[in-house]
């Protein structure tokens, strides 16, 4: 059977290459800034630059395009994907290593169509699957802002993708499956606020890039919209953003959503892991109107049926009893015996979608890593949770997480000890 699988793989690769070649044969000449329809005067307009700065924050461009300890927007961060590492490019206006020689036409082609300056297909680690919905005007403002940044000379590293993904034209097949080019079209049946929220969430906010499961080719099927999913390699679970019970935003008011995005905390939960970075770097800077629009849109997502209440695969009684003891000893002082937390300080665990998400990763890693709530203008001196990695064994973490996931109104499956031991080994990024 092995030879058959290999043969099929080989055929698949050849088909990918052929399709890639057919869809994308020749090159493409970049538009030089001098030939651009957008004048330099337009790009220097302070009002446009300011609007672009805001939009670049909404899109959290700096989140990926800045390396740890590196200059903002100068790239250099390695984005780990299951297909290999992708170094994030420099988007400062440096002529040799950044976007200094780019015209707006080149930028639009990248953001909207997912193609580089020379027409080469971009890898979708750059989330053009979402950015294609950004309007021409907004893209122009973003480009004006990026061009106004100080130029940083920092050469981007070459791609480190595995074969066959290293063949750039293989992206053509991927695009045929997962990419639909097109600016966001407002729904006339909905309010302007709803449409603004949908535009931000689906487009620049690129929420779906984490909050939906990816399949084995790293794509998100079209019907998977904000249904929640595990972030590949980072191994955090981005919860379902619909109002689903037991794992979604059930019971969240619009104000709760606004609070979380603005301050990092809400009456329903606190952002942590990668979302803490999103809040600190992006959403806390969003205007109240935009946050309310996002909340309106998320609140309107179809309430999917409650996640299955999974029966325990083994008799979990003793595990849960042990978990309750650990909870009383280590957790109840802050999160309360009733799992309600302390308003404004410690998040509730009862009904918390990061506790009840299907994988159990978030609760497990939160126990292992602890950490501070997001640092925001509204919460400049956040409280923190102790990391328990040193204090609790895998079995103890499994017990207390299983207890939390099944207590009060929570009805999520137990977490086995082997999962904790795996999560303990996950690199922290």
């Amino acid at each position, binding site marked *: 059977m092995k030879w058959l699988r290999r043969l099929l793989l080989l055929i698949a690769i050849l088909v990918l290459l052929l399709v890639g070649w057919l869809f994308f044969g020749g090159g493409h000449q970049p538009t030089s800034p001098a030939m651009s329809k957008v004048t330099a005067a337009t790009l220097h307009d302070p009002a446009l630059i300011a609007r672009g700065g805001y939009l670049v924050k909404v899109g959290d461009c700096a989140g990926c395009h800045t390396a*740890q*300890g590196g200059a903002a927007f100068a790239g250099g961060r390695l984005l780990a994907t299951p297909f290999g590492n992708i170094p994030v490019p420099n988007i400062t206006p440096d002529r040799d290593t950044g976007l200094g020689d780019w015209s707006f036409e080149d930028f639009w082609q990248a953001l909207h169509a997912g193609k580089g300056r020379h027409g080469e297909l971009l890898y979708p680690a750059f989330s053009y699957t979402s950015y294609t919905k950004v309007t021409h005007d907004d893209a122009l403002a973003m480009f004006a802002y990026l061009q106004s940044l100080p130029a940083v000379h920092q050469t981007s590293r070459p791609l480190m993708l595995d074969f066959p993904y290293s063949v750039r034209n293989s992206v053509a097949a991927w695009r045929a499956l997962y990419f639909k080019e097109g600016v966001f079209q407002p729904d006339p049946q909905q309010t302007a606020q709803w449409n603004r929220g949908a535009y931000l969430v689906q487009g620049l906010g690129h929420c779906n890039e984490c909050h939906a499961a990816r399949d084995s080719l790293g794509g998100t099927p079209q019907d998977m919209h904000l249904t929640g999913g595990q972030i590949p390699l980072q191994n955090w679970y981005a919860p379902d953003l619909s109002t689903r019970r037991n794992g979604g935003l059930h019971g969240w008011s619009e104000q709760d959503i606004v609070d979380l995005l603005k301050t990092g905390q809400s009456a329903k939960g606190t952002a942590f892991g990668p979302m*803490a*970075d999103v809040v*600190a770097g992006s959403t806390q800077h969003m205007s109240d109107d935009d946050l309310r629009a996002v909340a309106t849109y998320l609140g309107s997502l179809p309430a999917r049926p409650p996640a299955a209440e999974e029966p325990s695969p083994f008799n979990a009684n003793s595990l849960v009893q042990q978990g309750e003891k650990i909870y009383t000893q280590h957790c*109840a*002082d*802050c*999160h*309360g*015996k*009733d799992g*309600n937390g*302390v*308003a404004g*300080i*410690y998040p509730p665990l009862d009904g918390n979608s990061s506790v009840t998400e299907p994988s159990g990763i978030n609760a497990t890693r939160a126990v292992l*890593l*602890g*950490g*501070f709530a*997001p*640092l925001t203008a509204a919460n*400049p*001196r*956040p*409280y*923190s*949770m*102790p*990391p*328990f*990695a*040193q*204090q609790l064994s895998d079995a103890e973490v499994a017990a207390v997480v299983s207890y939390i996931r099944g207590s009060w109104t929570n009805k999520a499956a137990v977490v086995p000890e082997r999962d904790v031991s795996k999560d303990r080994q996950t*690199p*922290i990024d």
Partner: protein
Amino acid sequence: MNTNTKLRPATPIVAVALLAAAMLIAAAARAADAPKIPDTLQQRIAACTTCHGVHGEGTPGSGYFPRLAGKPAAYLARQMQDFQNGLRKYAPMEYTVRQLSPAYMQEIAEYFAAQQVPYSRSPLPPVSAATLQRGEQLVSKGDPASRIPACASCHGNQLTGVQPSTPGLVGLPYDYLSAQLGSWRTHTRGTVAPDCMAVIANRLSDSDITAVAAALASRQLPADTHAQAAGSVTPPLPCGVLGATGDGT
């Protein structure tokens, strides 16, 4: 039937009253259940104190987490910054401090710098008398032939550190000390250039690292464990953290 009719109007009132009472009791119980959280920095930094101790005393028993108490504040703030920037590598620390603002890190650094707690001893590996002697030589005199300055030439006569940026070395566990010297050589600990400690660590042999870590960890504590006054030493090497002062090579 008759009785029923008479009772009927009263029932909802009683039910409402009972329900209201129950809700009040439940609300009161819930309020009482909610933990009382003090608004103190110490409470806010539980993520730090769980390993480094409530007063920054470290974990002498386990031998790894370093003491923070009494170290100069600028040194401690610098370390958090270095973890943030990835100059100093230790994933749990990088994760914990990654978002903290300079102001908050300064406040946390000052908290630990102000703590005064007794020092305690950490376990030492068995080392020979000769090793300890070599270590003691490096600590107090250095090794001019290998261009290794004495620890005391920067970290103070009593190795209690120097304000504002040089940490004390007394009372640190052997495991922590040897791991730090090793990590300067493997580029998992660094700081702003010129990184004088990286230069020195690379001049130490493996056995020197064992010797100096053992000698430091076994040293008697001085009567006064406070860091020396700022400007009281002239570093033999240029150090970025000290404003690149120092005249040696």
